């Protein structure tokens, strides 16, 4: 697969990735170290700069992303266990803050919220007007602790919302104002496979600061000038060679622990030519079409455009809401049946989009190897097993497909 780290297309405007650079592109930039109090000061500095600080926090038995006021809101000493349809937290024997793999939330929920008003129709003084929805300034988020996979997911959504002929202004406003304090992954989950998608565990691009948590604190790399300012304000000192070596070791060990190594070579072509493979029907037998996978996927961008009228009829508004290609209504055409009426066709669409057509549309695949769709699948369907089955049974055709070919 194309390594996602080089996510920037030639000729894209320089602001596209907000001057995010490749790791260690500035040879002279010192690596820094923050002990726990300094890291707390860094969070305070972000808040002082007017950011809404968003980080991992414990809620309802899961690590979610939400507003964090300070160190005490971060999940201390918590690990996580992941499997197909399995997620649980466990107590670690240390007090690490970023000792878990990502929970169900990603930056998507903030940069591309689940529901968003686009326009309002109202009639002040009896005269109807169409108005865009913007309520004051867009929020400025500082994301704390995003792992490499989620950072890459943001860069992929940039391509979706900003890279085409139509720029998505609401997304752009939130995206441009955001600060990213990323965390190199030291504790991958058992469903993770970022080493195969080329998206982790190291944060390579798209951050202002990237930290690696080691015993006693955080080793920090500078990504942008603002990142350096924030580190200065927090009193981050230069890291010692031992600390740098410990951070490299921690992430390398994380990479070694990721034992899911799918064969993704040419997977797009394999999927395209297997639209009629019986594997899709077999998966559809298990798939509940609940849409959990699309909701937790950090790159899934499909949405409905919905108009609603107020109860008085004085106002109407247009919103967009996350949609899932697993719903039957997704391909509804007025006066006809849905284009993708079967569960098999909808599962095939989702997976083929992620690994094949996404690449054709945006230049990179839509999967960052975070494993969320496996962890939060209530039926425990593992996309890597599906991909492997398709590859193993490459060329098999179901009855309908043979029939279609005959017609042709």
């Amino acid at each position, binding site marked *: 697969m194309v390594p996602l780290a080089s996510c920037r297309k030639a000729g894209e405007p320089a602001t596209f990735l907000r001057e995010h650079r490749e790791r260690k592109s500035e040879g002279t930039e010192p690596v820094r170290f923050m002990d726990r109090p300094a890291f707390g000061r860094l969070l305070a500095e972000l808040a002082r700069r007017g950011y809404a600080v968003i980080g991992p926090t414990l809620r309802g038995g899961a690590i979610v992303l939400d507003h964090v006021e300070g160190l005490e809101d971060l999940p201390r000493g918590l690990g996580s266990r992941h499997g197909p349809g399995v997620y649980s937290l466990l107590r670690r024997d240390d007090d690490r803050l970023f000792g878990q793999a990502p929970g169900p939330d990603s930056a998507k929920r903030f940069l591309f919220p689940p529901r968003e008003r686009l326009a309002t129709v109202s009639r002040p003084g009896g*005269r109807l007007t*169409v108005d*865009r929805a913007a309520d004051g300034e867009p929020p400025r988020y500082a994301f704390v602790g995003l792992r490499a996979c989620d950072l890459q997911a943001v860069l992929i959504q940039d391509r979706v919302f900003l890279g085409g002929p139509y720029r998505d202004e609401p997304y752009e406003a939130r995206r441009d104002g955001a600060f990213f304090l990323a965390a190199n992954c030291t504790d991958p989950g058992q469903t993770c496979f970022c080493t195969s998608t080329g998206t982790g565990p190291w944060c390579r691009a798209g951050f202002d600061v990237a930290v690696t948590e080691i015993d006693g604190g955080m080793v920090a790399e500078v990504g942008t000038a603002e990142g350096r300012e924030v580190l200065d304000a927090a009193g981050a000192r230069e890291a010692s060679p031992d600390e740098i070596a410990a951070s490299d070791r921690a992430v390398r060990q994380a990479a070694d622990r990721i034992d899911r190594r799918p064969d993704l070579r040419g997977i797009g072509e394999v999927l395209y030519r297997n639209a009629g493979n019986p594997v899709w029907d077999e998966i559809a037998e298990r798939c509940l079409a609940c849409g959990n996978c699309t909701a937790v996927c950090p790159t899934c961008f499909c949405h409905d455009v919905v108009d609603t009228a107020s109860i008085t009829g004085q106002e109407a508004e247009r919103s967009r809401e996350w949609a899932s290609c697993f719903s039957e209504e997704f391909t509804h055409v007025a006066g006809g049946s849905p284009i993708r009426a079967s569960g098999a066709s909808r599962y095939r669409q989702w997976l083929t989009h992620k690994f094949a057509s996404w690449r054709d549309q945006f230049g990179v695949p839509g999967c960052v190897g975070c494993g969320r769709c496996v962890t939060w699948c209530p039926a425990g369907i593992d996309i890597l097993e599906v991909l492997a089955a398709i590859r193993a049974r490459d060329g098999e055709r179901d009855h309908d497909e043979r029939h279609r070919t005959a017609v042709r």
Partner: protein
Amino acid sequence: MSAAIAMERLEPAPERPPADVGLPLRVATIRRVVPETPDTSTYWLTLADPAERARFRFEPGQFDMLTVPGVGESAISISSDPAHPERLAHTVRAVGRVTRALGALGSGDRIGLRGPFGRPWPMAEAEGGDLLIVAGGLGLAPVRPAIFRAMRARDRYRRVVVLIGARGPEHLLFGGEFDGWGQWMRDRELEVALSVDVPTDDWPYGVGVVTTLFDGARIEPQRTTALVCGPEIMMCFAAHDLVVRGMSPDRIHVCIERNMQCGVRLCGHCQLGPLFVCSDGPVFPFGEVVDHLEAGR
């Protein structure tokens, strides 16, 4: 209740950036509603803002998103003459929430309009050769601007053949103007043939699906460009038939209908393989989409 909103005056806020992602939502006035068939009417619209009205241009095959405020938005092909973009016809079958709400509106009512969207029919590419236009049912509406365009630039094409199919005579679109329109076409050496699946006793033309008209159309595959529009199954049969007759799949163009919600390749609903039908289409060379259509994507 929601339809009542559309009855009110709908004015855009002056000097504001686009009201929506993608093309801005404009206000349009319904000037006339012409019933076509029991469930289909043609809505003649003009943009409320004179400057926007003067600026608006569209190409044959493009579509607009029409908004009934508080109800929703629907993608509708423009069915009128592109030489007169100041008045826009949209031929609508009342089968969905939005199109039924539209049915409650009439002359003088205001609605929202975004557009035009999409890749048009390849009118320039077809110049110098024969133009074969094949329409089934409501599919006549999106190719009607192409017929107007061909009539106005008649000398740029050799033969222009229009084959129209419908379920029955009562389902033929543009019936009110059909005799005059047909005569106009014949005067300009357009060849027109009609066929219906279920004829009435006095139906004087062909009987059967529209592809039964191919035999009499004297198609010369090497110099013909085909514009095919109708239900997907009809387009696939017609296109395969034309391929069998020797036409290249790349010179057969079809107009694909999908669930289009944003019109600007962001909402994801209209995907066909890697294609966003709303902006990569809705018009495609058959060769570009045949694999995706037949894979059921």
